[in-house]
């Protein structure tokens, strides 16, 4: 009987020890070049549908203390569950950069991605990059924003679409302006979109859309506005009595 316990105990020990050992044998060759700072070159703050590849790759750059780009230093990317990178790690190129295609997870929301590298002293260096995944509802909102709202609410102009923001006497709130919009309840947002500025004693330059957009469309627009707001919006939700 004693023998059995011993065997079991030994087996347990073996299992635990194998489980704890990190596989290092087949890992990529150790980097020989190190930088000290990770900076984002491009690709942050993008929006894409859930589960899809972001339109632009995320590009990060490794610099040394003097701010010069470091080539051949190792960068690794990581993110929340469901996010994948292609490639997920690799050496920086001759201009000190590594570019990766990011596939977003399947839930709508903000995704914080991290790029990692090490300094020569093996000190970890991290860079946080945020991306936004639009679910079905937010995607509808995004399209409606593009069609109806962005011409006034987004001050950025392009040759294809000139912004009207600068021409307006009363400036509209950009949808990312969390400081203002997060204080407004869903009911208020619905009222102002549906019945126009005067519904909340605000400017008549904001026209009412309740005869143009459906209830579902207005809800979608609000879901989108809530998702892209900066600082992020936290729904207060229904308050239940504590048990």
């Amino acid at each position, binding site marked *: 009987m004693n023998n059995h316990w011993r065997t079991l105990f030994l087996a347990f020990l073996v299992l635990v020890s194998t489980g704890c050992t990190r596989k290092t044998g087949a890992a990529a060759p150790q980097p020989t070049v190190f930088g000290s700072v990770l900076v984002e070159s491009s690709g942050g703050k993008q929006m894409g*549908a*859930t*589960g*899809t*590849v*972001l*339109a632009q790759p995320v590009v990060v750059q490794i610099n040394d203390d003097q701010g010069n780009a470091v080539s051949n230093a190792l960068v690794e990317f990581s993110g929340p569950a*469901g996010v994948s990178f292609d490639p997920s790690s690799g050496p920086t190129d001759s201009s000190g950069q590594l570019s990766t*295609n990011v*596939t977003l*997870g*399947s*839930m*709508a929301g903000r995704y914080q991605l991290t790029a990692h590298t090490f300094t020569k002293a093996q000190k970890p260096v991290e860079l946080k990059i945020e991306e936004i995944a639009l*679910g*079905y*509802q937010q*995607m*509808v909102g995004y*399209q*409606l924003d593009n*069609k*109806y709202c962005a*011409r*006034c609410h987004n001050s950025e102009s392009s*040759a*294809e679409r*000139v912004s*009207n923001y600068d*021409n*307006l006497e009363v400036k509209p709130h950009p949808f990312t302006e969390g400081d203002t919009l997060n204080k407004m309840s869903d009911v208020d947002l619905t009222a102002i979109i549906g019945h126009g500025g005067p519904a909340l004693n605000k*400017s*008549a*330059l904001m*026209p*009412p*859309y*309740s*005869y*143009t957009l459906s209830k*579902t469309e207005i*809800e*979608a627009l609000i*879901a989108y506005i809530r998702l892209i707001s900066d600082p992020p919006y936290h*729904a207060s*939700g*229904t*308050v*239940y*009595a*504590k*048990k």
Partner: protein
Amino acid sequence: MSAFGTVSLLLLIALAIAPAKNHFSEWRHYQKQYLALIRDRGEAVTLQRHFRGGIQQIWLPQLGVVDRCTTCHVGLKEASLADVTTQPFRQHPVIPHTLDQFGCVMCHRGQGPATTVEEAHRSTLAWEQPILPAKYVQSSCGQCHRAPLTGTPQLNLGRTLLTRYGCVHCHTIKLPDGSVIQPTDDPPSLEHIADKTTREWIYAWLKDPQAYAVTATMPNFKLSDPDARDISAFLISDSTPLAGDTEPAPKNEKTPDPTAGASLYGESFCASCHAVQNAAGNVVGGDIGPELTRVGTKAKPEWLRAWLRNPRVYDSGTAMPHYRFTDPQLSLLTSFLGNKTDSDFLANVHLDAATPGQIAHGKLLVTEYGCASCHEINGIKKPDNFAPELTRIGSKPLTQVIFLPGMTHALPDYIAAKIRQPRSFGAALKMPQFSLAPAQVDALTTALLALTDRAHDLPTALTVPAKQPSNYQPAGEAGKLMDDMACFTCHAINGRGGDLAPDLTWEGSSVQREWLLAFLKNPGTLRPALIRRMPRFNISDDDAKELTDYIMTVYQTPAFDRDSMPTSGYPATQVEQGRQLFYSKYACQSCHIVDTKVDKGYIGPTLTQVGSRLTAPWIYHWLKDPQAMRPGSIEPNRNMSDEDARALTAFLMMQKSSSKGAKK
């Protein structure tokens, strides 16, 4: 005795197996986990009341849906679980359908009746359809919805790419309604190619189309040097000359001024359709016509001149309008475009004179690669069903699929890999290499995955049909003129045409005759902020009159009579009331300009002369319901009272053009 005891013990154990298996089943484990999860939440009582233990099932016989997913995914309908991120307890994101309408596998695939994680989500021996990865989920919308949806940009893009990149030239795709997807690209005919370009250009283009134009949709056939040499030899020898294409420019002509050429290119709004890559590498311009970055390296000057004079001679169906340029203008543009060259493109191309053997081999290759599926080529018939039909590709049995080593054994991965690198499945395959971004590959895969057996077998009541393509053709002389000027490239009428410019179906009810006549002769801009505008076609007075008469007579709405309200003479009080409404209640100045000194709205058309442009009933009905007059208009419907709409109409009708004595 002891034997009897052992047997009964064994029997007891055997009897206990079934209940024990049931007791320890995965789904019970998840249900217990769920109950533990909600126990401490504030809304526990509500959640517990909603919870139903045991196997749950959504059964929709006419859809063939038997889904037990809700057995483990218990919180799908619980809005209060928005903060829960662990599966299988997440709340389902908001979509336009409910679980009870369609179940789960209609959108997510997988094995609905299964009650274990493995069987439900992954392909097993008995079930090969695993859960669809989230990135392709829009394909499921496409099973019923044949028209583009606001919420499915990826599917819409994929469907556009299928027709725009010419996939359907080679692959037949029959839709469940019996129609066949038609390509929307217009690959040029090669019947007179020798007029247009040189053999060297054809060779370099065949070797790498994207080296000539980054936006080229022509795929790379990965031809060897001798094969490209032979195909170019055949195409040149096969080409027949076209009268006019080789006519040289008139003699004794001054060297055209390059800046004047650039301004003519700009004034003619060539960039609305054609793109040019700038020094920074950005492609700027429209994508209706081919990119012109290196057009001088490709097009022979004589041909370019003939094409600009009247493109319809070379290609009767071209989207390019007939501009009616004068001879000096033709010289300006020909020289301007001819200077867009890139000496690197043809630098390393040196071809010896073609031998009959090379030409014959070239012809063989052209037949083998199915070039005639896209291009018209003298003496070669367009092949039927050149490539496999893709009508039900979204349900292709995995047993018929050959996977590459190391590939995930799933249909979406196979389709995506096949689009991304067709030749990786065999060097001898004919499918060429397309230049597609990762997002475009995913979009195409999504569009193809929508072509399932289920899409074909759905009850017709459930399908949402696409808008039927219209082959509307205006009649008579005006019809010929409209074809000549390619109006349908930008404007839609009665369901046919592009969406770059306003729909003209009811133009005759909308505008005043004098304005239209003047506009056709010399189009001014209505929306100053737009970079893509109506070009000037230099049409004759007779042609302008012909077109105006046709538009005014034929394109009228049945909704009202355009003469039912006067064009002027509104009472001053009503006009003043309209002005008040314009500036205060409706704040129209946020998007429109009536008084250039005060107003700054650049979104809608400028209204400074609207009283000379539009008819009063059109303005009135537009104010009442813009989308009824022009579907998709972004002007919000203000639910205006009749009185307000009449006053605003009066105010706007008083905004006349200066020649008629403006108010201000």
